[in-house]
C-alpha cells in the first residue's frame, strides 16, 4: 500500500493562500509558503511554531479539509489530490476546536463517529467501549460532553480521532489550555498510541512539549519551515552548552579559571565573583573531565550545573525572536 517506503507523509512545496474579500477589496493571506516535510512511519512528529505560523492550515490540508493552493502531498501511501476517500479512512484528525458534540454524551459521540466510518451498530458499541477503556473515560462517558473538564474533553476528542484505528493521527494543539497534570496525562496517552504503532503528527507552540514528546521537530514560522531535526540535533546546532561552577571563594574561582582556560581551549569562560560560566561544546562529555582536572589540582567545586540550549535558543537563532513572547 505504502509505495514510498518509510515516509507516511511527504509534502513538496505545499502552499496555501487564502483569498478573501474585505469590503470589496481582494485580500490575500499566504498562510503556508512552500512546506517540504517528511514524516517517518511510527514516530511522533512535532510541528512547533508561534500562533499564526501556519500549523493548523498545514494540518487541515493534510487531513483533506482544505485544498492546497499548490504543491503535492503523499500521505498514508496516497496522493492527496486523487485519493481523498482512502486517505480519510486511514487517518484520524483532531482539530484545535476538538469537534465533539457537546450536547451528546461521550459514548453517543463515539457511537456516531464509528457509524460514520461504516461500522455496524454492534461493532460500533464494542469499539466505543474499548476506546472508553483505553482512554480511561469510564467515570464520565455517560455524561454530556459539555460537562467535561478540559482534560476529559481532550481525551474524548482524541478517542474520536482514533475511532477507526487509523495508522496516522493528526493532533492540532492537543494540550493547549490544559493544566500541567492533564498535559502530562495526554503526553502519556500519545506515547501509548505510538507504542501501538500509530504515527502521530502534532502541532504545538509549547517548546517543552516538542522537546519531551517528539522524535522529530519541524519549526515553522510565518508559513515556512525554518529548521528541522531531532530535538537533540536542533539544540546541538546551537553549539555550546553552559557549565556553571561554584567555588568557596573568588580566590579559588580565579585560580580554577586559569587552569580550565589552559586545558579547554575552545571554551569561553566568564567569572562572576566565585562562580564560573563555561560555554563549551558537548557539555555532557566535558563535565567529568572538568571535575577530574579540578581534582588533580586540588580544587573542589562546591556546585556544578550543566544547562543545554533550549528549543527557544534555536527559534531565537533563526528568527531573532523568542518563542516565549508569542505565548498567549
Amino acid at each position: 500500500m505504502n509505495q514510498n517506503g518509510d515516509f507516511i507523509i511527504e509534502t513538496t512545496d505545499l502552499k496555501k493562500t487564502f483569498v478573501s474579500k474585505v469590503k470589496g477589496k481582494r485580500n490575500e493571506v499566504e498562510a503556508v509558503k512552500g512546506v517540504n516535510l517528511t514524516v517517518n512511519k511510527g514516530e511522533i512528529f512535532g510541528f512547533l511554531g508561534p500562533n499564526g505560523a501556519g500549523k493548523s492550515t498545514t494540518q487541515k490540508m493534510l487531513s483533506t479539509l482544505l485544498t492546497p493552493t499548490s504543491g503535492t502531498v503523499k500521505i498514508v501511501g496516497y496522493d492527496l489530490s486523487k485519493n481523498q476517500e482512502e486517505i480519510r479512512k486511514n487517518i484520524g484528525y483532531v482539530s484545535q476546536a476538538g469537534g465533539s458534540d457537546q450536547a451528546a454524551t461521550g459514548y453517543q459521540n463515539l457511537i456516531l463517529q464509528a457509524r460514520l466510518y461504516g461500522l455496524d451498530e454492534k461493532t460500533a458499541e464494542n469499539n466505543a467501549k474499548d476506546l472508553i477503556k483505553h482512554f480511561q473515560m469510564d467515570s464520565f462517558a455517560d455524561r454530556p460532553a459539555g460537562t467535561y473538564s478540559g482534560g476529559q474533553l481532550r481525551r474524548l476528542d482524541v478517542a474520536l480521532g482514533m475511532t477507526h484505528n487509523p495508522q496516522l493521527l493528526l493532533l492540532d494543539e492537543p494540550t493547549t489550555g490544559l493544566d500541567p497534570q492533564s498535559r502530562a496525562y495526554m503526553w502519556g496517552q500519545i506515547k501509548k498510541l505510538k507504542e501501538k504503532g500509530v504515527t502521530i503528527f502534532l502541532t504545538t507552540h509549547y517548546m517543552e512539549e516538542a522537546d519531551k514528546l517528539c522524535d522529530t521537530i519541524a519549526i515553522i514560522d510565518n508559513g515556512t519551515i525554518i529548521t528541522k531535526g531531532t530535538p537533540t540535533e536542533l539544540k546541538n546546532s546551537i553549539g555550546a552548552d553552559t557549565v556553571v561552577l561554584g567555588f568557596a571563594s573568588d580566590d579559588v574561582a580565579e585560580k580554577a579559571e586559569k587552569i580550565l582556560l589552559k586545558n579547554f581551549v575552545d571554551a569561553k569562560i566568564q567569572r562572576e565573583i566565585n562562580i564560573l560560566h563555561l560555554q563549551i561544546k558537548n557539555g555532557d562529555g566535558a563535565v567529568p573531565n572538568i571535575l577530574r582536572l579540578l581534582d588533580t589540582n586540588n580544587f573542589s567545586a562546591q556546585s556544578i550545573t550543566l544547562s543545554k540550549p533550549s528549543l527557544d535558543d534555536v527559534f531565537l537563532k533563526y528568527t531573532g525572536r523568542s518563542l516565549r513572547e508569542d505565548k498567549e
Partner: protein
Amino acid sequence: MKLLQDIKLMFIRNVQHTLRNPIFMFLSLFQPLLYLFLFMPLLKNLGGTPGLPAGETVEIFIPGLMVMMALFGSAFVGFDLIDDIRSGVIERFLVTPVSRSAILWGRVLRDASVLLLQVILITIVAIPFGLNVKFEYFLISLPLYVMIAITMASMSYAFALMYKTEDALAPTINTITLPVSLLSGILLPLTLAPLWLQNLAKVNPFSYAVNASRALFTGNVGGPDILIGFVIVFLLMSIMFYWSIQELRKIEE
C-alpha cells in the same frame, strides 16, 4: 446504499439533538397559536369582503398560517449550524468518509419533521375553531409545507456556512423573511390588496405557495393554483439545497 445510510445517521443525530431540548420545538408553536387565538377572531367579522367569503375565513386563514410556520420556523436553523461549525463538529464530520450532502440532508429532514409535527398540532387545535378541511386535501398540502421548510432551512444553512457568525446571519434572515411573508398574503388574502401590491407579490414565489395551500383547504382544487404552487416551491427548494451544498464544499477550498 451508502448515501441513504449516511442520511439516516445524520438525521437521527439531529433529531436527538432537537429532542434533548424539546422545549424549543414547542416554543416556536407559541406565535402561531397566538395568531389562532387573538387574530383569527378578527377575521371572522371581516367575512364577506372580496377574497374573504363569509363562512370560509378559517379555511382562508389557516393555510396561510401553515405557510408562515414553514417559512419562519425553518429560517433560523442556521444558528444551530454555526454552533456546530464553531465547536469543530462539522470539520470532524468532513474528515470522515461520510457523504457531504448527507450532513445537510440530515438537518433539513429533521427541520421538515419538526414542521410536520407543528402543522399537525395546529390543525388539531384549529378544528374546534371551525376548521373544515377535507382529510385528503390536508394530506396533499403536507408535502408543500415540507418543501417550504426545506427551502428556508437550506437557505439558512447556506448563509450560515457563508458567514460563520451569528452577527451576520440574524439581520440577513430577518431582511429576507419579513418582505417575503408580507408579500405572500399569509395573513390576509392579496385580493384585498391594491393592484400594485398584487403585482409585486407575483414575483414572490411563496405567494404561489399560499395560493396552493388555500386552494387545498377551501377545496377549490379545479384551478391551476395547486400545480403552480407545488412546481414553484419544488424548483426553489432544489436551488436552495444545491446552494447550501455548494457552500458546504467551499469550507474545503
